[in-house]
């Protein structure tokens, strides 16, 4: 069987429908099948990445219609890189959550697993689709799964967070649709490559208005200030693997969509500055809000928003080095923030409330988990020898190349804020006097494997970044080479 990009989407869809049936056969099917599917996605990623390294990019056409008319899935080094990252992280998150809440009833766990899988599949769909309307559809798939998962726990304020998310998400879909309408009226196409090709002929005002709708709609997905009011609530109320997925998968897809639209479809001046400024503002506000959080997951959520802000800054700078740094940071942030959510989840699990102040001395109870959390915190701040260092390094380096001195100073000052609250938590975990009884919930084996593999990645890449850098490099090149993208898609097949 030849593996093609559509397997990314077909496999989870089939599985999603099959799981309710399979649970009738064996009650653990709901847990295992998503794992198999996600692992299959990992395999797909590797095969496709190998293929595009050898033969160049893939553009798969669905239902036999040719590129501009039909729906197509595109795997360039750029989208391939992101899709691989998302599927690998998705698999690891599944592994972590494999024995997640064994106390849950079978029906609930079934929905959880299906929604989780659909969210990851939808994110991959966002990344690999070459069609702007399919982008919309996939965003909605991710959205609906995400809303439901946010409200997954009846006992928490999940419904409230879910409703807010849904409300904001509704705006996002409305504006996205408006943007699509405008683009469609002006270019008569929904294919991104063709839109990009025809974009120069579009009247300037129309172009800008369409762009603004896209920026707002996708900015919501990419957690850009001031459109990110939903994010802290959703992150903090969702089940932890879902929070990790939000950080590692959904936000990546959101940023991808924004960047794809801005970089490939439009050719408007000033949008880079917009990204840079809004990225910086997002980062600043998010970190400022994070510093006095009392709830661990909420703090991590704000931190995620801050990191996404940094990614947007880097995309705003727009040089090759900056894009490289941004892609590297997206990877790092996915990995590290997943690790932090995973470890943080065990803290929360053992403290009954999600408050930071009840983490005092939890090191005694959960030494390994605490160790990993500390490692993740240091890595996220950007300390060497962890992977986070390199991404921040390249982003700042690229900012320096463009001589944005105040931007650099600003980013670094914000990093100081970030460092303050992370290290306060680390200090609490390791050094404050412990309270309460010994741990009742030790991490399970699968969770340890998942977390350790992330930690290992952080250290190995931190010490020897060359392992991953060529891939990111080619991804960055692929993103920036717009004409090649257009030409390839329109001429392929």
């Amino acid at each position, binding site marked *: 069987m030849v593996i093609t990009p559509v397997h990314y989407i077909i496999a989870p869809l089939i599985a999603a429908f099959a799981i309710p049936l399979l649970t009738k056969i064996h009650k653990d099917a709901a847990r295992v099948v998503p794992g198999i599917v996600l692992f299959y996605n990992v395999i797909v990623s590797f095969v496709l990445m190998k293929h595009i390294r050898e033969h160049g990019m893939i553009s798969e056409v669905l239902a036999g219609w040719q590129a501009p008319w039909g729906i197509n899935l595109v795997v360039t080094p750029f989208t391939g890189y992101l899709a691989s990252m998302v599927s690998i992280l998705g698999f690891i998150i599944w592994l972590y959550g494999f024995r997640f809440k064994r106390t849950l009833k079978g029906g609930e766990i079934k929905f959880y697993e299906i929604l989780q899988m659909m969210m990851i599949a939808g994110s991959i769909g966002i990344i690999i689709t070459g069609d702007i309307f399919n982008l919309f559809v996939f965003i909605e798939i991710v959205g609906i799964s995400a809303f439901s998962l946010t409200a997954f726990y009846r006992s928490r304020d999940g419904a409230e967070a879910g409703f807010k998310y849904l*409300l*904001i998400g509704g*705006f996002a879909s409305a*504006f996205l649709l408006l943007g699509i309408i405008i683009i469609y009226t002006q270019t008569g196409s929904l294919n991104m490559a063709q839109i990009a090709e025809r974009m120069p002929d579009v009247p300037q005002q129309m172009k800008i208005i369409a762009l603004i709708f896209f920026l707002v709609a996708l900015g919501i997905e990419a957690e850009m200030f001031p*459109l990110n009011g939903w994010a802290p609530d959703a992150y903090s109320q969702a089940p932890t693997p879902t929070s990790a997925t939000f950080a590692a998968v959904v936000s990546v897809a959101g940023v991808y969509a924004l960047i794809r639209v801005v970089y490939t479809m439009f050719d408007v001046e000033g949008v880079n500055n917009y990204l840079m400024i809004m990225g910086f503002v997002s980062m600043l506000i998010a970190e400022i*809000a994070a510093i006095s959080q009392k709830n661990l997951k909420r703090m991590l959520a704000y931190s995620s928003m801050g990191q996404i802000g940094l990614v947007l800054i880097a995309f705003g700078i727009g040089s090759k080095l900056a894009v490289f740094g941004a892609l590297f940071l997206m990877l790092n942030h996915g990995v590290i923030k997943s690790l932090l959510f995973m470890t943080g989840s065990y803290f929360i699990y053992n403290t009954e409330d999600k408050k930071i102040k009840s983490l005092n001395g939890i090191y005694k109870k959960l030494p390994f988990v605490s160790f990993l959390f500390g490692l993740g915190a240091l890595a996220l701040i950007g300390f*060497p020898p962890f992977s986070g260092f390199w991404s921040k390094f390249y982003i700042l380096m690229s900012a320096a190349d463009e001589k944005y001195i105040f931007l650099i100073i600003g980013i670094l000052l914000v990093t*100081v804020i970030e460092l303050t609250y992370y290290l*306060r938590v680390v200090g609490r975990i390791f050094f404050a006097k412990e309270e309460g009884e010994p741990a009742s919930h030790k991490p399970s084996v699968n969770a340890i494997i998942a977390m350790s593999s992330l930690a290992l990645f952080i250290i190995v890449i931190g010490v*020897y970044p060359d392992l991953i850098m060529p891939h990111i490099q080619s991804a960055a090149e692929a993103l920036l080479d717009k004409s090649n993208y257009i030409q390839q898609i329109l001429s392929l097949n």
Partner: protein
Amino acid sequence: MEIIAIILLILLVGSFLTYFVDSFNKKWTGTTAFLIVLITAGIFFTKIKSGYQFNFQLAGLDLQWGLTDYSYYFVYIILGLSVLALLYSIKYMEGKARLGYFYGSFILTVLGMLGVVISQDFVSLFFFWEIMTWASFLLVIYNAYYKIKTKGIKYMIFSAVGAYAMFTAIVFIHVHYDTLLISEAIAKGAFNFEQYIYIPIFLLLGFGIKAAVMPFHVWAPPAYAKSPMSFTTIFSGAMSKMGVFGIGLVFTSFYLSSNPENFFWVRTILGWMGGITAVMGTIYALIQTDAKKLLAYSSVAQLGYIIVGLSTGTQLGVMAALYLAVIHAVFKGALFMVAGAVEKQAGTTDMTQISGLIRKMPYTFVVALVSIIALAGVPPLGGFVGKWLLYEALITESNNYILVVVVFFSSTAAFMYSYRFLFGLFLGQEEKETEHVKEAPATMIIPMIILAIIATVAGAYPGLIFEPAAKAMQAIGFQDVTWQMSSLTNVWGDTTDLFLIAMLIFAVFIISFVFLTLKGLKKTRYVGTKDISTSGELPKEWENLTFQLDFFKPFERAAAPLYKMDMNKIWKDLGKNLEAFFGFFRKIYTGNGQTYALYIVIFLVVLLLFRDVLFS
């Protein structure tokens, strides 16, 4: 594999190894750490000679590691002191919790420091600098149970600001001079204040914060005092010297590559910052009641001298700074070990609670005495040499007459806290509370004694330190550095013959010791410290004979204006205000979904209204 990479790998693996040894057997953790660093030091000093270089590529960057005489000079401090501190640490840390954590971070810190000095490109420098910073942060908060929020974090925030300032400078060196190699940057004049002035300023900020220079010194005293003493030995002795290392590099290259007369203000500002640091450190040291805090402030003051020395940019001044760097590491290392020994044996270093330990801890006292004499700069011990060089450099070469008085004031006032330290811990009334105190174990005494011996020998033969220091200076661009084995000469030709002085003092000491002390010792009997005369009246049982509180109150009163300017409070207020400000901004997230929706619409409208401004 390159030998230097192997060394760093040994330390890295050793760090984890120690961590895991701890989970098997707590007794061996300290020994393992000690052996690892000892082996590293052994390999380093035998296999790597100055001039060694190793080029490689990582992450698309050309990196270079290597050793010049200058960096080798600092390696002596780092590895030498680390080995001694770890030997000391074995017993000092015995019985404490989280040993694996402690030693693991300790070795990582050593790795970081070693990395900093072997880095010959800025990326590695920053890389290791950060490792050093966070590893030491973990050690700083090791003891700070309830004060994490204020004490430990303060260190980290300052360090991070410093490191990031440095980083900013580095990226701009890359942009403006298209190089990441330190040597190339120097050759291209990157450290000059002429062209891109923010580069050297940011670099100096980064290094200066690590060296606890004036307005940024507030992190140092609590950090030094709160860390475990075996680590503070390294922290104050070696790690603060990393700042000196950097400032020396930046400054000398700046002075030597340009006409110093044009940059009078640069040297003046830096010199005065060092001078004020020295004064502030000293006057705050002498009002402390905790011996550790006293030493911590004293470290700040001593680093001020070093900065003053570097700021002169003259041969004698830089020599003074380099010499002081070593001798400060030696005597302050010993003193922190003394404080640690007292803490370990007596349970506290609060001088209002313990006193009169001299008869219980005689060896520790001797070490303390020798180190304090060296610290006070009284001949014939090593400290005097540093003071001499510094004054002579300021008077004869740098013509900075008021600054020299400031430095002198600081160093005279240092007599006060020197005495306070000895008196507070070892002299004075023998209280009941300290009756159980015993001498520290041998593995703690030995490293202290080694350091005390070095401090003593350096007094008579400072040439032993001058030799590598001179080489180091030549490595950073000074030409024909002259030095003598045991005498000091300034540019006016005035000499001080240290060997002669030491011999004279030694001879007089022997004679008077034999004829006075030995006799006295034989013929007298010891009576307790309660048996004293108070103007003819015998003190009553209940009478308080301990004088430890407000020891220098008269001086405090006299120097009251100096105590008014409290940097600590200024920074604290700044922090508080910032957090309040942040708290205000946080309110943007009102929690009401409708408000968020409103934000979106408003944002959309604003974008639509200003679309012509934003996009084109």
